[in-house]
C-alpha cells in the first residue's frame, strides 16, 4: 500500500493504482484519473456511470461488474465500451476510486 498525490490530494492506492479508500475520492480526482486512462474529458454520460458505480459500491462494498453497470445505469454495452474504450471494467472502477470489480459478468 502506497500513497500518491492526485489533483493536489494525497490518497492511498494499491500496487495496481486503484484507490483503496473510496472516501478519499472526489470529482477532481476522477478527472485526473480519467486523463491517465486516456479519457481527456468526462462528459455527463461518463458521470452517470461513475455516479452509479459509487452508489453501487457504497451499498455492496465492491465495484460493480460491467453487466451490473449496463443494467443498473441503463447504458448499452456498446455505449459503455465507447465511453471507456479498451477495458471499461478496470477503467470505470479506477476512475470511480474503487477496487477492481468482483464478479465475472
Amino acid at each position, binding site marked *: 500500500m502506497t500513497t500518491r498525490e492526485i489533483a493536489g490530494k494525497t490518497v492511498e492506492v494499491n500496487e495496481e493504482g486503484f484507490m483503496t479508500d473510496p472516501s478519499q475520492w472526489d470529482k477532481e480526482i476522477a478527472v485526473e484519473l480519467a486523463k491517465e486512462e*486516456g479519457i481527456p474529458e468526462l462528459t455527463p454520460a461518463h458521470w452517470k456511470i461513475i455516479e452509479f458505480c459509487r452508489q453501487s459500491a457504497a451499498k455492496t462494498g465492491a465495484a460493480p461488474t*460491467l*453487466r451490473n453497470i*449496463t443494467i443498473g445505469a441503463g447504458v*448499452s*454495452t*456498446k455505449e459503455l*465500451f465507447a465511453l471507456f*474504450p*479498451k*477495458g*471499461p*471494467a*478496470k*477503467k470505470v472502477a479506477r476512475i470511480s476510486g474503487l477496487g477492481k*470489480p468482483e464478479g*465475472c*459478468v
Partner: protein
Amino acid sequence: MTEENRKIAFICSKGTLDMAYPALVMGWAALGNGIDVTIFFTFWGLDIINKARVDHLELAPVANTSMKMSMMGVNTGNLGIPNIMGILPGMTAFATKLMKDKMAKLDVPPVREYLQMLVDGGAKLYACKMTVDMMGLKKDDFVDGVLDIVTAGDFIDMTEGAQIIFI
C-alpha cells in the same frame, strides 16, 4: 499500456450448454480488460451461434461424472447420477433446466444475450468453413454478429500473436 494490444482467441468446438460458457465468460472478462477477443466456432461449437440452436443448448447427465445427485438438492454427497437414470426420457431436459436456473440465479445471462454482449463489446466471431460446409449451413443460419465464415488458415492468419484457447 503496451503499444501492441494483448489478443486472445478462443476455439469453441463443443455445443453443450456447459461448454458454451467458458469462452463467453473469459471473453467478456478479456474485453473488460481491454484485450482483443476473437472466437472461432467449429464442429459442435457452431450450435452456440446457430440461431435455431443457441436457445436450446443442453447438458446431458449420461457419462457426466461431475454431475452429482446433490446438485438436485438432495443431500447425497458424492453420489453420482446413475447413468441408467440419465437415459430416462426427460433427464437431459431436467439437467439442462437445473443448470440454466443456477446460472440465472447468479445473474449470468443466457447464451444468446451473452453473445450479443461480447459482440457489442467488440469481440469478433467467426464460423469454421469446413464444418459449415459439412453441416450444410449458411451465414443466415447464424446469429447477428458472426462476421464471416472462414477457413482454418484464415483463422491462423488473423490470430497472429494471440493467445489461443481451445474449448
